[in-house]
């Protein structure tokens, strides 16, 4: 497999960052960066990361099940993560998550048929003082009200997906 020139440059830098003989250290970062380009941790990606990090494919595979951000199936183009952990819960995060479910017509870790959106109820993502918080892909949104949530989704929803 080959990746974009930017990612290849990142990987080249990464593989010499760790001590000699410790390329295995690159497994987790390589998986998460590559996943963003490929869309999911596919069997081919596992083999590729194993080859580049000089470990057995099984040693890559066993890591995938452990980390919550690694996923074997593609998520939506916009992965909507709503925090309901304690600080967000106190500030309406649970209700915001329920609102998100209705708005997107999705449950936890589900993806729309057109692949545009996926939804996940997530654990604390470090935005406690600006709760409730939403992260869409890697973009943080703070103090999110249901109305602002709708605006965010409608702004992203350019493919004309029917919102519920």
């Amino acid at each position, binding site marked *: 497999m080959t990746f974009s020139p930017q990612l290849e440059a990142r990987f080249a830098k*990464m593989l010499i*960052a*760790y*001590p000699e003989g*410790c390329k*295995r*250290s*690159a*497994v*987790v*970062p390589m*998986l*998460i*960066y590559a996943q963003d380009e490929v869309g999911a941790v596919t069997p081919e990606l596992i083999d590729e990361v194993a080859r580049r*990090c000089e*470990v057995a494919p099984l*040693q890559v595979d*066993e*890591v995938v099940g*452990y*980390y*919550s*951000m*690694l996923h074997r199936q593609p998520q939506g183009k916009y992965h909507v993560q709503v925090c*309901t*952990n*304690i*600080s967000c*819960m*106190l*500030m309406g995060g649970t209700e915001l998550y329920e609102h998100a479910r209705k708005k997107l017509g999705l449950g936890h870790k589900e993806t729309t048929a057109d692949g545009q959106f996926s939804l996940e109820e997530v*654990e*604390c*993502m*470090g*935005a*406690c*003082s*600006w*709760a409730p918080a939403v*992260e869409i892909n*890697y*973009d*943080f949104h*703070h103090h999110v009200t249901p109305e602002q949530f709708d605006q965010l989704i409608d702004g992203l929803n350019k493919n004309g997906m029917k919102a519920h």
Partner: protein
Amino acid sequence: MAVKLYNEPSPLETRVLSKRFGLPNSASLDTYLANDGFKAFRKAREMKPEQIVEEVKTSALRGRGGAGFPTGLKWSFVPRTSPKPKYIVINADESEPGTCKDRLLMEYDPHQMIEGILIAGLAIDSHKGYLYIRGEYRYLIDHMDRAIAEAYSKGYLGKNIAGTGFDFDLYTHSGAGAYECGEETALLDSLEGKRGIPRMKPPFPAVAGAWASPTLLNNVETFSAIPAIIRDGGAAFAALGTPKNGGTRLVCISGHVNKPGVYELPLGFPMLKAIYEVAGGIPGGKKLKAVVPGGSSCPLLKADECDIPMDYDTLAKIGSMLGSGGMVVMDETTDMVKVALRIMRFYAHESCGWCIPCREGTTWLRKILQRFDDGGGRQEDVSLLGELSKNMLGRTFCALGDAAAMPTISIVDKFAADFEKRLSAEAVPQTVMV
């Protein structure tokens, strides 16, 4: 252009680590250099390594990640004369519910942390550092990559740093979603490309850490405090706080307050003053019910326990912890059954499964609390929750089991009335736990 801050600063703050927050281009090396940047590194270069460690000891700085271990003492455990390479690992896996401060230290003042790392490098004779950032903070990984590249290009990382003859390489390393990896030995396994499973201690990371080499692991905020300590002296930093609790820390106030935010307060700052003056009090004039003093792993405090100075020793004395600085405020309308359930859902989700008391304990506690919240609570559940939690204490490799048990014990003990209310208000249907 001034940087827009996440929250308005408070005049009651003592801004040492956050003093550059809000300056134009505060993340740039030029701004850093124009505002005391790298004075401490140059000073440390003239000091003996033992003197650096002594200065950190004098500062009474304690680890800001949560455990509150004296930083200077931790540094002194690293065998600097070991023939093996020594590594520095920076814990930026900020995941403790209630905590959102390391984000700001990296976003607004990355070079302060880098300078702190370099000074640690001088102290323990290390030339390589790894900045482990949680995967959800991708924008900060990119941000730190840019800051690191800027430091390299201007001679503040790499070979012969600032002309002093000292070499140091620093790299970012992405996590991928796992609270457990904030625990230092699990973080090291994750850094080595494995599942983040805690290691048996001893050996401690200072002796055999990353790749079986001596490793110094500290939190972002801990490293960020080092330049001020070396620049102005450990004694000056210590004097900001209370005895054995040196300096200031970034307190993340969240929950039911008018002005939630991250505020830099000296150790020993009164908790009620933080809630009512710094954070503007509770909305609607409601009464205080409970406080999580330092992240969700800490035993909760009742309102009448909150008239205390916020330092490690006072919190320990009343059976809680100052933890990671995540202070969650709850008003009188808060349902503590729901709080206990949400906390346990988190720990059950994040338990890595390595130790049975934690894996099984968190799962069963979550099920019992869920049943209770669904209206199927039984009288004996309250004591069962406490008993199950106490059986987890001290029986696991890492502190996650304790972190799940301690808040639960405190909630069923201190807020039993909330559980009783549920029992009396609802008929008790027969339920099957799934």
